[in-house]
């Protein structure tokens, strides 16, 4: 049973994409950069290009980290839903297969200013 109930019970999800006024949610986080307490929540039109996501909100949000200036965006390793994945910067979120509420992670091997001294 998918819920303990006295009779057949079907829940209605609250955060379906049609409730976001034409936009969608994307979660983005930077591995081993925990100055940022949680993955960022972005709300963007699905037609946003990946480059716009990176050069717009994402670059602005990561600024406070001392490694931000050293990021080489052409060398960043990406994961989507925890699997290695390669985005096309000039295509949209939709065309990159980034669905509503997808989690994207970035990795920058070698950059770890605030990470634990091993």
């Amino acid at each position, binding site marked *: 049973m*998918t*819920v*303990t*109930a*006295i009779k057949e*019970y*079907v*829940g*209605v*999800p*609250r*955060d*379906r994409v049609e*409730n*976001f*006024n034409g*936009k969608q*949610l994307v*979660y983005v*986080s930077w*591995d*081993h950069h*925990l*100055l*940022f*307490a*949680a*993955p*960022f*929540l*972005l*709300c963007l039109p699905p037609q946003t290009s990946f480059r716009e996501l990176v050069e717009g*909100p994402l670059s602005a*949000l990561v600024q*406070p980290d*001392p490694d931000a200036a050293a990021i080489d965006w052409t060398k960043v390793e990406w994961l989507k*839903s*925890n699997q290695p994945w390669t985005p096309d910067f000039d295509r949209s979120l939709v065309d990159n297969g980034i*669905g*509503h*509420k*997808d*989690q994207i*992670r970035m990795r920058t091997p070698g950059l770890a200013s*605030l*990470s*634990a*001294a091993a």
Partner: protein
Amino acid sequence: MDMKVAKKKLGLKEKYRLMTRDLGWEPTYRAKDEVFPYVNYEGIKVHDWDKWEDPFRLTMDSYWKYQAEKERKFYAIIDAHAQNNGHLNITDARYLSALKIFLQAISPGEYAAHKGFARVGREFPGVGTQVACQMQAIDEIRHAQTQIHALSNYNKYYDGFHAFADARDRIWYTSVARSFFDDAMSAGPFEFMIAIGFSFEYVLTNLLFVPFMSGAAYNGDMATVTFGFSAQSDEARHMTLGLECIKFMLEQDPDNLPIVQGWLDKWFWRGFRVLGLVSTMMDYMLPKRVMSWREAWEIYGVENGGALFKDLARYGIRPPKGWDDAEKAIDHMSHQFMLGLYQWSFGTSFHSWIPSDEDMDWLSAKYPTTFDKYYRPRWDHIRKLAAAGTPFKNFGLAKLCQTCQLPVVFTEPDDATMSCHRETEYKGEKYHFCSDGCQHIFDNEPEKYVQAWLPMPSLFQELNGDIGAWMNWVGLRDGEDNGDFVGSRDQRNFDQWRGMATSNL
């Protein structure tokens, strides 16, 4: 007609029988199932409700007498507190943040517990159970009221207290407690008893109230100490009810064991997530600290909890599934959570601050294996940013856990450098979690948790991401209730008033 009263006074036992057990009427013109329709669907089998023990044997008339006496004492002290400028006797205005979180997140939980016990008191068929639940329902509404009254005096002088009810319903960091109680209240009567009566009252209450009340005493907050004392004598009864309920279920039928164990696993983890708020309070918010969160966990979690589960082992109960993950999180959770509260403090109805050198040395001493290694570098950097005139604000908002509704600030149990990423897909929708514990809870009852109202996504659904409109809606006054303690109105006022009270300036 005059009647001779045979006996002037009833014996305690007889009185209890007449005024409690004797109220258990057998319905004659309706089937019992119609009168108690919610007692079977959770799968708990009960063969004999009379086996329910009530060690207190308290009857309603004596209950009223005790409680009325306590109320009289409570309000006398609260009045004295107001008349003697109790709001100036606290150690420092930073202490108020702990109180604000308590009022916004925990006191409304008392009210929710009241509603829940009123409901399950009606839903259980056993009369001993009904009376015990009725008393606890009244206790809980009294707790909510005395807490609100006690803290209302601070509301006259300080920011962040005025809109606690809206904060409870709408702001983001309270939703961990709100969703805990909503989850319990939308469960069946037996699960409610495990959630509140057992997990919350018995397993976790010491970790919440003891540190909080001693924190109040250490920091000169007599109003809070007073409501703590006034509630304390009820707690013994509540803990007994919770323990009695779990033993009753386990003794009634062996088939109840797996159901009860599943609830224990779930509600331990849900409660543990609520305690995240308490951990930040203990480690970061008390100007005069009582003990570290780690020390509190050792005493009230490991020792007391360990003894309890040892005692329950004879029924086949094992410690909750999340126990080991909890232990691994103890040295990290307050730091991870506090870093979040600080960077999102533009959206909190309380103040936070960068720990001082002295604070950080205390944290290093209390967390020798984790603080300097993982967390001091972050605070040092945040301090640098503040000194450079670019204080750290994370406007990225946060991914929230679908189950506990906290921002997913926690790391992998075995790797504190790696955020814990957990996700699942259900009926074509993606859902994210802070931990395996929260994901298990979702997986067991997805139809329940897909409906979660998550504060941060809602900001985009309902207000198109307009932070100003959101602040109005949650009752947060920008520049007054939120942000860094340093430079806040609370800081200014407290220093000025206290100066006036203690010097001739």
